[in-house]
């Protein structure tokens, strides 16, 4: 059997101590195949961002482990690129420098770096904006630079934590198509966190639905829609049926987490 690119084995995590703290992840196992695009959806607070941060090596899990290419993850590393939801460009650097910053630790010559930076800036459609500062860019453009920065050092896995969450609906749609195009061009393993079911289905080969806190993988949906995908696919019967199933699954969990908060008083629980 082919070795999975990313393997998460029996991961559990608490905020605070296991005895008195809050359990956020409960025995999560999953794997990502080479070049697979997998989305993780779930109700807010279900621990999906924590899961991504653990895979990124930014959080040490309390139990379980993460393997990338068979090797255990012990901390952050350049085999994984991360795109965050917040705008994380360095505001004092122009676009070109922001992307080049990611090559600081690479052995490339100045010339090679410049060529790579130019290539990825073009890939995300920002040719001509090399010398613009982040404060001159729209939210969508900033996230495109962040994607270029996460790809330029050629990581094996791209981890994305609701990267389009702060963008307006129109921009978000454009960004999804752009990311798919980039992914098809560069073929990389992607783990994509989102709470937008449309987004998850549109982009992914597989959608994993997490339970309410403490997070577990509740169900897995394979997305067998043909690629390359265009946004029209979102109105196809297959898409809508899949969306219906996923939304139902998440809704159960949302109601469960609300029941915890409201002590059983479920506003609008019927239906």
């Amino acid at each position, binding site marked *: 059997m082919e070795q999975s690119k990313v393997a998460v084995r029996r991961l559990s995590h608490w905020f605070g101590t296991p005895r008195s703290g809050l359990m956020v992840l409960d025995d999560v196992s999953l794997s990502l195949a080479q070049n697979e695009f997998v989305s993780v959806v779930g109700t807010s607070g279900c621990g999906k961002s924590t899961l991504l941060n653990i895979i990124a090596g930014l959080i040490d899990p309390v139990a379980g482990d993460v393997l990338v290419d068979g090797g255990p993850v012990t901390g*952050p590393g350049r085999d994984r690129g991360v795109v965050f939801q917040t705008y*994380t460009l360095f505001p004092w650097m122009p676009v070109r420098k922001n992307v080049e910053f990611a090559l600081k630790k690479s052995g490339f010559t100045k010339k090679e770096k410049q060529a790579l930076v130019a290539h990825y800036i073009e890939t995300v459609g920002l040719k001509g904006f090399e010398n613009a500062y982040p404060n*001159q860019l729209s939210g969508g453009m900033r996230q495109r630079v962040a994607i270029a920065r*996460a790809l330029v050092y050629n990581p094996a896995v791209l981890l994305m934590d609701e990267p389009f969450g702060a963008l307006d609906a129109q921009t978000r749609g454009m960004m999804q198509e752009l990311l798919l195009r980039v992914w098809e061009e560069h073929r990389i393993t992607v783990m994509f966190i989102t709470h937008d079911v449309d987004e998850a289905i549109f982009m992914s080969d597989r959608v994993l639905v997490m339970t309410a806190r403490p997070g577990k993988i509740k169900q897995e949906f394979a997305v067998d829609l043909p690629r390359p995908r265009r946004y029209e696919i979102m109105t196809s019967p297959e898409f809508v049926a899949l969306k219906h199933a996923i939304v139902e699954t998440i809704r159960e969990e949302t109601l469960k987490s609300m029941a915890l908060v409201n002590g059983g008083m479920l506003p609008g629980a019927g239906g």
Partner: protein
Amino acid sequence: METSPARDLEFEGPASPVRRRNRVKLLALREDIPRSVYLLAGTGFIAAVLVAWSIATYGGYISDLFLPTPTAIIDEGVRQYERGILVQDARASIYRIVVGWFIATLCAVPIGVLMGNFKLIEGLLEPFIDLVRYMPVVALVPLTILWAGIGDEQKFLILFIGTFFQEVLLIMDNVKTVPHDLIRVGYTLGLSRFEILRDIILPASLPGVWDTFRITLGWTWTYLVVAELVAARDGLGRRIMEAQRYLATEQIIFGIIFIGFLGLVTDYFFKITGTYLFKWTKER
């Protein structure tokens, strides 16, 4: 399908639309007002104070002993300038301010940066700094003379004490405002903690630090009189203390205004250089 242009919606009126009167609401909450009004308000207020002062003094409502006339103050300034006292005093005071503030800043920046980034160092130093911060600097003057003598070193020490313990906490806060996600980006790009500190946290906090420089240098100015309280031969603060002895009110007031003016100049220096250096902080 044919789509009709929005012609139907067009207003069939006179060729040039009647301009609506552009009313500027000067007291709208947090709205911008015309720059000219803004500047006029500020200069107008100062002018009003001057007018009130003139009426009170020229009109003879207040004795010269309590408040001299504006011309008396100006004459005092001219007199001090012509006799070379003013330049000599200003030179001595500016030298003390600059050196005192530099030493304070040279210590405050690295210590503040460490405190802002390492909880251990924050926990180690903050209680002590908080304690010293509330000690009255004036009361420390006798001690500083005991420790540092009566030369310029004692002045530096007073200015240092007055500035450092406030500045270091402000620097710590500046550093803490750097978004945590920027630091996480550094980790994911494989940078070491030191590299993140040097290449991400420092540049990201620099605009805030620059503003701290502006504010703390202002504080150093306010401690000048305290520093020159005892055993100073020259200096702007010294001149004020001396004038007090002879009830030379115009000397006192001129000195106060002149210190205020110099403080304002340094303040604007940091403000203007700051907006020039950190254009990237301004959101569109």
